[in-house]
């Protein structure tokens, strides 16, 4: 990618100060798990928030409070408890939608981001099968049409598109990653063309930490009338994100990576598109009139929320959003920007360690993955774990990107608002000893 801070609203402003030490101490008190020790007795350094974040007490309390005082089925039943539960559920939708600059009409609850992408791809499929009438015309795909994704995607933003291509006869193409594993806009311009109907890409890579030039890709897609789908799983938790402002048509993110519970994620879609899209899952709660032959559907977002919903999870996710807003996403981004820079600089200077992704001095979130020469990522992770440092090892659900980098697995450290510079330094210090432990670089 091209580091174009002027064009990318996701890059934190340099004028916002990062979190102070006393603020960090207070934040860490909200996460009791972080002050604990690992099974081996070492103090925990949690650097795996890219996989899942820890949860503050406020979020746990919100879920418990809902079950204690407001639990009932939503959007059905006339008793006052059901009304209260419905209010809490819809208020949560407004809060989470507002967090990404959207309105409640534009936010569909899903179980996770993977389901949200599958929702979009199956809606395309259903439209292709003739569902949704004339309004769904723009979602119909066939031979000659092209679906474009990138070589840097998480499997969740690749496989659903492979399957959609297989079901519709459309062709899957991809923007290649460069030697650093990042996306080059010039390469994108060569792949996106007149036949492109949909462009799916990640906002922030879960392997390299690179921030994509969203505006540049959206412009290319708009020139050819293609719809855009943004994987915002690694951006929404860490950066101020205004989805309508980015100009994407759809976006997905997950609750558990942003201090919320598991089991809830969201699909953002421009209202006009969501209203025109046929449903994916069907059943109760998403209908108006049902006969034995057919049914009519509610408008979006309810049209996409069949069956019993994740009410307590939505309520808890809204609390997570309020927690993040209380600190301020610009400040969180500035804090993580500093941690990311510290990670990248420390890793780039380490012997036998190859940092993938943007080089030090280039924009990245607080996430960095490395290959350690002569030591497999699982062994690296094991040594770090024994020292209490929890990182992710493996292909991080991005096998094609690893293959492009000539690797099968990497070791990834990823930060969040609760991580300190000392956390990063402990990771760097432990990592520096790994090659010696395995005798890598010695003769034989």
């Amino acid at each position, binding site marked *: 990618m091209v580091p174009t801070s002027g064009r990318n609203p996701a890059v934190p402003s340099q004028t916002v100060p990062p979190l102070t030490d006393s603020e960090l101490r207070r934040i860490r008190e909200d996460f009791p798990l972080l002050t604990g020790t690992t099974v081996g007795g070492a103090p925990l350094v949690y650097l795996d928030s890219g996989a899942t974040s820890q949860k503050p007490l406020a979020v746990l309390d919100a879920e418990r409070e809902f079950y204690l005082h407001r639990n009932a089925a939503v959007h059905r039943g006339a008793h006052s408890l059901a009304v209260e539960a419905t209010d809490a559920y819809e208020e949560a939708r407004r809060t989470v939608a507002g967090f990404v600059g959207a309105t409640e009409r534009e936010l569909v609850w899903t179980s996770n981001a993977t389901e949200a992408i599958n929702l979009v791809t199956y809606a395309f499929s259903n439209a292709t099968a003739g569902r949704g009438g004339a309004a769904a015309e723009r979602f119909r795909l066939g031979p000659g049409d092209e679906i474009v994704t990138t070589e840097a995607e998480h499997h969740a933003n690749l496989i659903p598109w492979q399957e959609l291509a297989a079901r519709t006869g459309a062709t899957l193409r991809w923007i290649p990653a460069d030697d650093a594993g990042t996306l080059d806009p010039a390469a994108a311009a060569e792949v996106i063309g007149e036949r492109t109907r949909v462009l799916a890409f990640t906002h922030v890579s879960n392997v390299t930490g690179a921030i994509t030039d969203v505006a540049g890709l959206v412009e290319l897609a708009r020139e050819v009338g293609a719809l855009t789908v943004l994987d915002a799983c690694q951006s929404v938790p860490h950066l101020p994100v205004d989805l309508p402002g980015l100009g994407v048509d759809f976006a997905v993110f997950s609750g558990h990576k942003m201090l919320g519970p598991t089991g809830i994620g969201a699909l953002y879609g421009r209202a006009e598109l969501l209203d025109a899209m046929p449903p994916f899952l069907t059943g109760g709660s998403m209908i108006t009139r049902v006969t034995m032959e057919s049914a009519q559907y509610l408008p979006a977002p309810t049209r996409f929320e069949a069956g019993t919903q994740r009410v307590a999870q939505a309520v808890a996710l809204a609390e997570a959003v309020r927690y993040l807003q209380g600190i301020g996403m610009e400040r969180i981004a500035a804090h993580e920007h500093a941690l990311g820079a510290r990670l990248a600089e420390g890793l780039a200077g380490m012997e036998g360690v190859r940092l993938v992704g943007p080089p030090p001095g280039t924009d990245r979130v607080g996430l960095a993955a490395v290959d350690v020469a002569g*030591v497999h990522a*699982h062994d690296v992770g094991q040594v770090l774990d*024994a020292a209490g440092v929890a990182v992710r090892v493996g292909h991080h659900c991005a096998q094609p990107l690893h293959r492009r980098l000539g690797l*099968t*697995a990497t070791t990834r450290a990823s930060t969040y608002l609760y991580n300190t510079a000392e956390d990063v330094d402990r990771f760097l210090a432990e990592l520096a000893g790994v090659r010696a432990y395995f005798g890598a670089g010695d003769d034989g």
Partner: protein
Amino acid sequence: MSGLDGLYQEVILDHARRRSGEGLADPLPGHACGESHQYNPTCGDEITVRVELVPGDSGPGAEPVVERITWEGQGCSISMAAASVLAETAPGMTRTDLLALIEEFRALLRSRGTVEPDEELLGDAAAFAGVSRFVARVKCAMLGWVAAEEALGRAG
């Protein structure tokens, strides 16, 4: 002994560095041969194991005997060392004996540290007893051994 050193026994680290049987060899004429490829989707590790058998020398109808095991793979020190140990241990064993050894190795690894390894039977493979306490690594140790088990079934 710290938890980490309990896992990475010197024997294991040595085998990971100086690997026996690495590099697939073409089977010699007249040798029965079986091959298997195994993949660990969690970490992307993979291995191909080739088992060569020769007729047993204890008369007609005797069980075939393992002549050699060669392999090629990519993975962590545990998986590579386990394949190396297997390549050193298996030659000279009958098919039945090797299958029994693989079963013994599997039982040890699945024991979560509750089984004392039979060092006489297992030889260097007994060093993997510590792996059984690290559940996430059991698959790593088994990768090459599972491949050998399948390859044995395929060898004519």
